């Protein structure tokens, strides 16, 4: 990964601490913060934002800044620092929030994502944030955006070092890296020399340093005392490391000299509890005098009853004597310690541990293994069926337990990969905001069924087609406010994205109240292209015309959509996932596109049926009922169609023997069986020879090595090791509709 070189890395590498191991967590954390910030910025009410709203947004920026600075991602730190400054003023009500500010902050959010992506190895050009930074700084000062001001200025020397915000320090240090010939900013470094046999050698360095004019200043950090043969000094200079190293290696070996950035600082409040004895005033840390716990202070000594100077002992001694005293939470004294255990146990589960990050490969492997387990269990079940249950009672009981356990395990594991639709929906508010602004339209975005879950694998594949559909609605569907008002509609159009489960499928709908599809336009366009489009064509078929490649009735091709590459690709993508797309439209009122996708359950409950000598599997979830049927009860309609009467309703019949050209069995059954299945809102009766049984089946992909087979959604391996085909009920139902 390029760009992983950071300032802090050199320092901590010297100490043997590899910061890179924390990068991944930081990147994930930063991504969450940026998402949260974006969400909040989109939802904020400029006129009446609460303190907590503003605080919350501030904290997002602040958090990213902290991590970025610590792990050395200076570009990110710099941008977030500026954002934080602006947000700080907003939350203190020193500035009034404006739409322009929100826009700029959203842009900055995008820039940060790009910067972070680069740090994670995404490649690409460095993100140019010059204008962005200038805009933000202008806004900090109460000005308007896009002021052509140069980026961060270099602070003046000496005095400024102490009180400058570290972020400014960083950006300056960032501009004068080792060996660079940029105009020098002041640098504060820690010099470590050693281990030295003769610590006086270090003093030679100090002398040498002093001999060079304008090199800077050097002073000891260790009050002249070496620890483990190592001397430490503080250097303030404008020179780069390599120059300094060249100098030092006059007297000592290169390996004995270490230069570390003193970007961090700390301080003890002299005299504060636990504070150490006041030493050299450091710019970056301090102890408060007389504070409790301050090292070597009178208070620290006084705080302990037993007279030891160890603050830790003081604390424990205090505990001993105050065991019977009230504690923080004013609970009953005597039982305070005992009670402590219980709340600790409860409190020991911080917010963070409610979730766990696991790699996708691990989850997939888990699902695969559970699938194999199911197959093995099925095989065992099949083989143990032949045994006399009376003799093998315990085995039978064990097998029943095994089946239940396997089923439970399977459900649990499958649910791991399911994530809510809100993850898919989350990208649209921002996208629509920008898009609507670009097209000068007003769009109200509504989502329904955010909690509907779908498999993570599907989420990734469905995002592109959905994005296109949403863009389409916004671009071609919803009219401009003027057009809408002229038609008697409200100025603001509504775009609804909804998700729900229906049987074994998930239905996602994109609906808008725009101008809908024009039947006439589509028909004439089709005819232009030589497609047979008679006037008698049903509406559904007319709407389906837009799936033809290159078909677009857009008058003006915008750069958003309308190049006509859209709908056919959408349909292809959905079909590839085993799903369907339905369009419904009413000219002038709006349009709805429904995407149906099978929930890719790798393991499902199946009903096995015999057709001829072959075995087929039906998804149990789509089976409504089954019954024996006398041949006479099946009536023909219109010469080719067949129907059967079910409770005074006529249902279409599909003979699986015919559909799959199954060779007739030598021993056909006397009566055949009807299995009523339901899908896509329709029911159909399938004609089979026998019901074989019900079992959990592991769904195997047929297309991995073969191809898509009509009316077949997958395959499974039965208990005897043979392959059985799993039928696509939706597709069979659609058969019957023609």
């Amino acid at each position, binding site marked *: 990964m390029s760009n992983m070189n950071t300032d802090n890395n050199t320092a901590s590498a010297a100490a043997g601490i590899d910061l890179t191991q924390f990068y991944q967590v930081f990147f994930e954390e930063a991504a969450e913060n940026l998402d949260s910030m974006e969400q909040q910025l989109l939802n904020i009410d400029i006129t009446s934002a609460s303190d907590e709203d503003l605080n919350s947004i501030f904290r997002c920026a602040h958090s990213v800044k902290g991590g970025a600075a610590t792990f050395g991602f200076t570009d990110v730190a710099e941008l977030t620092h500026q954002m934080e400054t602006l947000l700080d003023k907003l939350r203190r009500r020193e500035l009034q929030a404006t739409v322009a500010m929100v826009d700029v902050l959203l842009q900055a959010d995008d820039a940060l994502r790009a910067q972070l992506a680069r740090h994670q190895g995404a490649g690409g050009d460095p993100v140019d944030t010059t204008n962005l930074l200038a805009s933000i700084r202008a806004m900090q000062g109460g000005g308007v955006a896009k002021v052509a001001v140069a980026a961060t200025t270099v602070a003046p020397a000496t005095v400024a070092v102490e009180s400058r915000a570290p972020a400014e320090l960083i950006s300056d240090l960032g501009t004068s890296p080792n060996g660079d010939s940029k105009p020098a900013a002041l640098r504060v470094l820690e010099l470590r020399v050693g281990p030295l046999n003769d610590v006086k050698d270090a003093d030679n360095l100090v002398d040498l340093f002093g001999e060079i004019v304008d090199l800077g200043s050097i002073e000891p950090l260790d009050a002249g005392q070496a620890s483990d043969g190592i001397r430490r000094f503080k250097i303030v200079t404008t020179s780069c490391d390599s120059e300094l190293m060249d100098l030092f290696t006059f007297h000592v070996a290169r390996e004995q000299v270490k230069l570390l950035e003193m970007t961090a600082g700390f301080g003890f409040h002299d005299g504060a509890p636990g504070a150490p004895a006041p030493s050299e005033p450091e710019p970056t840390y301090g102890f408060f005098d007389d504070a409790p716990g301050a090292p070597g202070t009178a208070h620290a000594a006084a705080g302990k009853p037993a007279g030891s100077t160890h603050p830790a002992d003081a604390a424990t001694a205090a505990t001993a004597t105050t065991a019977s005293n009230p504690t923080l939470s004013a609970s009953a004294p005597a039982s305070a310690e005992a009670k402590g255990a219980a709340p600790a146990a409860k409190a020991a589960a911080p917010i963070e541990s409610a979730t766990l990050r696991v790699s996708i490969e691990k989850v997939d492997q888990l699902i695969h293994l559970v699938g*194999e387990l199911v*197959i093995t269990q099925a095989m065992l079940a099949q083989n143990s069926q032949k045994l006399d249950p009376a003799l093998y009672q315990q085995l039978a009981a064990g097998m029943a337990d095994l089946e239940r356990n396997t089923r439970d395990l399977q459900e649990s594991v499958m649910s791991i990969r399911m994530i809510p639709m809100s993850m898919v929906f989350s990208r649209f508010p921002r996208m629509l905001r920008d898009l609507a602004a670009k097209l000068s339209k007003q769009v109200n975005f509504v989502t329904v069924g955010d909690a509907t879950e779908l498999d993570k694998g599907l989420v990734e594949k469905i995002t592109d087609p959905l994005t296109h559909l949403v863009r389409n609605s916004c671009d071609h569907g919803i009219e401009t406010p003027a057009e809408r008002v002229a038609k008697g509609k409200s100025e603001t159009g509504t775009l609804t994205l909804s998700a729900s489960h229906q049987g074994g499928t998930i239905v996602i709908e994109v609906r808008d109240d725009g101008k809908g599809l024009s039947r006439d336009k589509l028909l004439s366009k089709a005819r232009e292209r030589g497609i047979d489009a008679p006037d008698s064509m049903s509406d559904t078929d007319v709407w389906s015309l837009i799936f033809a490649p290159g078909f677009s009735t857009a008058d003006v091709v915008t750069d958003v959509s309308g190049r006509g590459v859209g709908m056919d690709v959408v349909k*292809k993508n959905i079909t*590839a996932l085993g799903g369907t797309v339905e369009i419904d439209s009413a000219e002038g009122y709006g349009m709805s596109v429904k995407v149906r996708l099978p929930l890719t359950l790798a393991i499902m409950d199946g009903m096995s049926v015999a057709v001829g000598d*072959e075995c087929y599997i039906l998804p149990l979830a789509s089976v409504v009922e089954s019954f024996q049927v006398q041949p006479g009860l099946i009536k023909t309609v219109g010469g080719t169609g067949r129907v059967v009467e079910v409770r005074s309703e006529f249902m279409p019949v599909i003979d699986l023997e015919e*559909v*799959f*050209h*199954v060779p007739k069995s030598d021993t056909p059954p006397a009566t055949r069986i009807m299995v009523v299945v339901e899908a896509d809102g329709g029911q159909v009766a399938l004609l089979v020879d026998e019901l074989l049984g019900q079992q959990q089946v592991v769904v*195997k*992909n*047929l*297309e*991995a*090595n*073969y*191809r*898509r*087979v*009509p009316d*077949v959604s997958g*395959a499974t*391996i039965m208990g005897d*090791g*043979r*392959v*059985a*085909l799993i039928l696509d009920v939706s597709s069979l139902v659609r058969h019957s509709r023609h």
Partner: protein
Amino acid sequence: MNSNDAKHIAQQAASHESAHAAISQAAQSAGRAARSSTPAHGEFLTFRLGEEEYGIDILKVQEIRSYEQPTRIANAPTFIKGVVNLRGVIVPIVDLRIKLNCTSVEYTDLTVVIVLNVKGRVVGTVVDSVSDVLQLSQDAIKPAPDLSSSVDSSFITGIGCVKSGAEQRMLILMDIEALMSSEEMGLINSI
């Protein structure tokens, strides 16, 4: 059938199994050893389809199995017999004898399936028998003559000539990967 017949067939199958296993081993080690797979020269697996002997790049061969009746797939072309379970993976089985219009197509205990790994897919093909693995040098390979063979000549990469004792064997060298992934085989979605 009685248990003796069963034992006999099992024995035969077993000896075939070991032969198959040996060839499978060869295929796998060839795959491990070699780097590039130039059909020009190299190691070939030879097999019989009716009267003719063919040779294919050993690197494409994953293993050899006895024939077992696949699960039929409706509406598939006749030369696609169906699919089988290969250690948990669904694999289509093609009968090259049917595809190449061989006169006699039988399924006996000796019928063999060559499991191929081509273009990232696992596909099995039924042949009459498998012969051996041969190393062919460049001069043993002659360019394919322009005959209207049952195989579309674009898949034939050459003719291999090998002396086997007193016999002169003529091997039709085939680009099995190209054949299996061609549209006419219909194994891959055309979308």
